[in-house]
């Protein structure tokens, strides 16, 4: 595609490398920027740079932070003794949005997957064990994905944790909210049955 400007073409090419943005979307964004006030573009460029320079990961839980501890770890109103283990920082965002949980988090950095060369020592498992002792954690909620690797990682963690005085739970599997039974696949229904609760 010929844009009449090497610079414009360059920008579009770079934008298409971003997740979720195709050629057409990239063109739209680039042309939008081209027609916006210079001020706006400068602010966007600065915003991009400062995020990269100033946002890091919380040394305690692995979530995003600008300072030392993230806002969740330094929030005194959080329930003490409760820790939720997730794979990636983005999952903290989902759980926070749900408002269902008021404890703190621990980002594992992935799941065990020998096929991808990811072994327990590549994850933040040792820091997790240290935290359990240091922060006197009484319940650990495993919020890992429901696939083979997520389940195996959960199994690995629960076996590691038998020596610790901590209750280990994992999120329930079953029917999505607002769904009807008719369209559920067998595996989901099976899980939902296994996880049925007393009313």
């Amino acid at each position, binding site marked *: 595609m010929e844009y009449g400007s090497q610079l414009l073409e360059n920008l579009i090419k770079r934008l298409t490398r971003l997740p979720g943005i195709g050629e057409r979307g990239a063109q739209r964004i680039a042309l939008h920027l081209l027609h916006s006030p210079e001020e706006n573009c400068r602010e966007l460029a600065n915003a991009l740079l400062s995020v990269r320079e100033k946002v890091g990961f919380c040394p305690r839980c692995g979530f995003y932070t600008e300072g030392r501890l993230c806002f969740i770890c330094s929030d005194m109103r959080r329930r003490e003794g409760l820790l939720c283990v997730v794979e990636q920082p983005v999952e903290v965002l989902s759980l926070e949005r749900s408002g269902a949980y008021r404890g703190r988090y621990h980002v594992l950095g992935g799941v065990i997957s020998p*096929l991808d060369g990811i072994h327990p020592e590549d994850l933040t498992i040792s820091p997790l064990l240290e935290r359990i002792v240091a922060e006197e954690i009484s319940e650990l909620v495993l919020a890992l994905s429901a696939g083979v690797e997520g389940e195996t990682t959960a199994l*690995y963690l629960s076996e590691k944790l038998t020596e610790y005085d901590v209750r280990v739970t994992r999120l329930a599997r079953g029917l999505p909210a607002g769904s009807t039974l008719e369209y559920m696949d067998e595996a989901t229904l099976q899980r939902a049955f296994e996880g049925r609760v007393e009313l």
Partner: protein
Amino acid sequence: MRYLDLRSEGFRNLAPFSLEFHPEVNWLYGANGQGKTNFLESLLYLVSGRSFRLSRDEDLINFDSDHFFIKGHLKDDGDELLSFTASCARNGGKRLKINEDEIGRLAELVSLTGTVVFGPTDVALVTGEPENRRRFLDYTLSKTDPGYLSNLMTYKRVLKQRNALLRDRVDGGHLAVWTEKLVDCGAEIILRRRENLLPINDHAANFYQDMSGAEELLKLSYTTKIPGRDKVEIKAEFAEKLKELAISESLKKRTLAGPHRDDMLIDIKGRNARKFASQGQKRSAAIALKLAQAEYLAQTRRDRPIVFLDDVFSELDQSRREKLCLLVGRKYQTFLASPQLEDLRNDLFGDFRRFRVDCGCVTLES
């Protein structure tokens, strides 16, 4: 299930067609390379969402077209009418619909229709590697036992992960959890394969006697290194076996026991058919297995499968051909393809429809 009609455009080498089918026997004939198997493939694609020859979707599009489109109507044994649509464009836009509703998961489509395909290479079921017989069992059970397929997929994934771990290093401290997961899924597979083999065996033994005409006894049995009466016992034996094999596994760098190494033993008159049976006996046994599969699908699903016989007659003598036709022709809707008309006597079936396949054109003859 049975096909009422099929319309197709841009599929493989086939010219656009719109055809109605006979509820029982549909007989395609034409020289090799004219499109008989492509035609069967289009029928199978519509009800399974993929090529039975495992071709890529894009390769199914006619060279002169940028997409294919197939639509057909089927009726199940409860006489409910279903319409299926499948299309795929060269840029990758694949769409599958049931009654004009786009499906979310392939499993929705696959679970609806049972199919049994019998081709010239299927004698490998008897003569070939254990892989062939495991695939036979896995397909049959996936179609009749809803939890089987998802459990099998999980097992395969865990096996791959465990093998990767054994390949990369002896133990990263987490071999035990992969083993635990493997044992859990694997025990379920062994149990279900073993249980379901009993009725399949009964059907196969009956069909084999029909085919061979003699008082020869065919017997199927599941062979595994992992015995046990119930799931608990199988799990314990499986875990024990892997413990025994730990050193060999770290040397060979792969998982050495489990349902992925099991087999289905086929005996004729008490002898392993793979080693000792004659060519004719092996062919009859392969046919008996396929017929047993059809019968088992029909009984457990309460809906008869559609049977596809792709060029199987050249391998069979006249009496076996006729018996095969008698056994499937009246029972299931059958699509059979053969190079010559003389392959079969016209009077084998009561009423049937004959289609001529020539240079990609499929036309109704009678």
